[in-house]
């Protein structure tokens, strides 16, 4: 990219991105953190946050490690091996992202609680899922898809020639993996670790259900709001979470320094990857199979309870829950969910890509700050993102604004980090000579971005789109402070049903919500086929 002064278009784009980030990410959070009240200080000095803080750190270390490990194996298996059932695994692999709060974690308890269908019913054990072990297990499954998507995107773009060369020089498969594959996947790995760690830190739904008395910071914040309406103290917890995210971010910057991970250069490559040993393919297949079986079990139990009267007490087949769901305002909620989710996903993934390009390719000071601000939303519990929006944008002069629009905007910016991280990791793999070739031929930087880089970043775009869509249709906490009677969404209805103790209705609604999301994603995948070439073809 040339100097900004010579490229007014780029400068304009940069200013626009900065303005949007300041207005829609920074400003609402400033409003939350600055919640007036002595309770804020009292809470910090009382120190009841210390145990949750330690718990949060412990959970983060454990869950991030296993989630990234599982995600890596899953990604490796999908990209490198020729194992069977890949399309099925790909679909099941994103199911855990589609978990509306409460409902899925509750299904774990049903299966693995002290009187769980599996633990007690099948094995006669009364071991309990509650506590640290439970959170660890559930979060590993809930968050490995983030790591899987980010790593697979990077792996799929890594150059097969390097691995072939290593093999030709006599290196064994393990040696190639250790000295070529692993180092080249570092941008994805780094992004995966950071993203997963921040999301684990921010996770509220899973610890709330299986945590028992093992309280982490987000459950504490939620409790302060939900149980006591104590906004100042909850804002204090949010501040602690944000500081932790900043520390994580700085640690990541230190770790991956300024090394080059370029694997896509100007020269064409159509070489196949070196074959993986058959036993490895089978091992990967077994692992992915076991993981997917576990996921299917959890989601399957939702389907069963949606179709029975009062699962597990009365398992008479019934469609009454579905009849209820399709009545009243529920249709509106489902329609809103789809419209908001798709719109937010489209804008969020494109915006993330543009921002990533400006940050990664740009040569202007202050890039690091923007970089952090674009990752920060991951560390903001949805609760505070929603409260921030409700506080900042509920002004009389803004009352003309449709609430649906505000909800979409909140979803765009809250879900930016994953798409952004994917795009940055992708850009780090693509040699600068690629876009420089375009600019030296007279194209503007923006044109080089649009015509050269954008088509090569299809995979990253897809990661951003899928993640944003899925999180948008399953988020509760952001929307809970913004929705109006006409702009209600599926998760709000599910939450209402859970609190009404209508478990059958809640699971039926969840099944429909997840089903619709899968259909929408499949349609998008079919439409996108052939348009986004590189990522889709190889991923």
């Amino acid at each position, binding site marked *: 990219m040339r100097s900004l002064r010579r490229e007014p278009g780029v400068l304009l784009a940069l200013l626009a991105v900065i303005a949007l980030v300041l207005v829609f990410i920074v400003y609402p959070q400033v409003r939350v953190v600055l919640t007036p009240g002595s309770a804020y200080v*009292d*809470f910090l000095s*009382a120190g*009841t946050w210390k*145990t949750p803080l330690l718990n949060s750190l412990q959970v983060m270390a454990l869950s991030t490690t296993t989630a990234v490990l599982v995600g890596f194996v899953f990604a490796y298996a999908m990209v490198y091996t020729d194992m069977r059932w890949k399309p099925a695994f790909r679909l099941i692999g994103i199911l855990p992202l589609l978990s509306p709060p*409460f409902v899925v974690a*509750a299904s774990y*308890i*049903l299966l693995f*609680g*002290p*009187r*769980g269908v599996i633990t007690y019913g099948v094995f006669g054990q009364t071991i*309990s899922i*509650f506590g640290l072990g439970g959170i660890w297990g559930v979060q590993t499954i809930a968050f490995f898809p983030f790591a899987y998507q980010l790593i697979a995107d990077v792996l799929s773009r890594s150059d097969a020639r390097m691995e072939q060369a290593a093999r030709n020089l006599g290196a064994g498969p393990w040696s190639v993996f250790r000295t070529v594959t692993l180092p080249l996947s570092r941008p994805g790995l780094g992004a995966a670790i950071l993203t997963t760690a921040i999301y684990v830190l921010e996770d509220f739904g899973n610890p*709330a*259900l299986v*945590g*028992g*008395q093992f*309280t982490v910071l987000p*459950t*504490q914040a*939620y*409790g302060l*709001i*939900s*149980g*006591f*309406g104590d*906004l100042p103290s909850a804002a204090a917890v949010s501040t602690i979470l944000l500081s932790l995210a900043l520390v994580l971010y700085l640690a990541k910057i230190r770790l991956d320094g300024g090394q080059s991970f370029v694997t896509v250069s100007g020269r064409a490559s159509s070489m196949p990857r070196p074959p993986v040993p058959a036993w490895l393919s089978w091992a990967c297949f077994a692992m992915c199979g076991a993981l997917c079986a576990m996921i299917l079990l959890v989601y399957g139990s939702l389907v069963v309870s949606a179709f029975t*009267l*009062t699962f*597990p*007490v*009365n398992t008479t087949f019934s469609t009454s829950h579905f009849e209820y769901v399709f009545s009243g305002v529920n249709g509106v909620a489902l329609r809103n969910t789809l419209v908001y989710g798709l719109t937010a996903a489209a804008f969020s993934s494109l915006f993330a890509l543009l921002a990533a390009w400006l940050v990664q390719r740009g040569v202007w000071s202050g890039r690091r700050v923007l970089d952090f601000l674009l990752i920060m939303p991951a560390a903001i519990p949805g609760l505070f993102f929603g*409260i921030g929006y*409700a*506080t900042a944008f*509920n*002004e*009389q002069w*803004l*009352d003309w604004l449709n609430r649906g629009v505000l909800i979409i905007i909140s979803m765009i910016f809250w879900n930016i980090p994953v798409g952004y991280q994917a795009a940055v990791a992708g850009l780090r793999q693509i040699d600068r000579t690629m876009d420089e070739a375009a600019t030296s031929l007279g194209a503007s930087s923006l044109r080089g971005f649009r015509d050269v880089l954008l088509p090569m970043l299809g995979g990253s775009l897809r990661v951003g789109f899928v993640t944003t869509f899925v999180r948008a249709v399953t988020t509760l906490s952001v929307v*809970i*402070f913004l*929705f*109006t*009677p006409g702009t209600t969404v599926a998760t*709000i209805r599910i*939450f*209402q*049903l*859970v*609190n*009404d*103790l*209508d*478990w059958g209705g809640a699971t039926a609604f969840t099944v429909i919500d997840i089903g619709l999301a899968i259909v929408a994603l499949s349609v998008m995948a079919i439409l996108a086929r052939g348009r986004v070439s590189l990522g889709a073809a190889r991923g």
Partner: protein
Amino acid sequence: MTPQLDRRTFLKGLGVVTVAAACGGAATPSPTATTAVATATPTAAPVTGTISVYSALNQSTNDQFFAAFKTAYPGVSIDLLPLAAAGELQTRITAEKNSPKADIFIGGSSEFHDPLGKAGLLEAYISPNAKDIAAQFKEPTGLWTGWYTGIFGFISNNDRLTKEIAGKKPATWDDLLDPAWKQKLILPSPTLTGGGYIFIATQIFRFNKNEAQAMDFMKKLHANIAQYIPTSPGALTLIDQGQFVGCPNWSHDILTEKSKGNPVDLTVPTDTGFEVGAISIVKGTKNLAAAKALVDWSITKEAGDLNVKLSNRGSTRTDVAAAPGSPSLTSVKLVNYDRQWATDNKARILKDWQTAVGL
């Protein structure tokens, strides 16, 4: 139910209210006149317009409750925002203070309404009908009015209670200290749920504010508690499934679970606590007359009877009978629950509790 029938029930209810007012009037003659005027308001000068209602009530209650209100005040239409989570609604109203979107906040314990009033976000209104409500159920300046009550009880899983505790339901909270309950009880988390905190406060009032004794009880109880659950409804589901044997929780919700065919039962140990469900008008309302009408109506006998039927909760009116099988404020022995004290000392008590049980 046809609308016509609804109107008839309403008129009958109206009659009862007027009669009750007249009877009350014998003892205290002065307010009779104002009451008559107040109850006649809907016919005298019809209230019209739309009000936005933030409701923490259950969906089934919402549907019928507001339909009945519409029958009484046909000119008023309601834009309902249902969210069965009073803490979130309280936070929303706080966050929206620059341009309030709600006219009415209904449902949820008064603990969620009171801070809004203190922060100047509520409109004080003493409804003429509030004279039928005892002082302990309403804010003296009218910032909020209590219209229903919830009593803390105990849910147990029938099968496991019979097999593991010899079918012995707790008659007092102290019965829960029996070692037979070891690791078989759960409790809504005192730090995360309003109900869990009310449970601790109840123990303190039970020991006449002797906090040391109450904390000693909580510490002993801790040995029997397997988990503190982050939401009150979540705890009920666990007992339904038999994951654990028993749990102190809200009586009305326990009855609802039981009525759905779950193998559970309700007991109300003696010296228990309760909540007061409130309604309040949000300051800045654009339709004060309609908002007042909803407050007036929700504390009528008709509304009380309907809510009792729909939600199994009690009423703050003495002339509303409790739902069949459910406890009422007069049928169970309650502690002398000092709501203000419990709210003011919350942070300290929770910290003491955490220290006592080592969490």
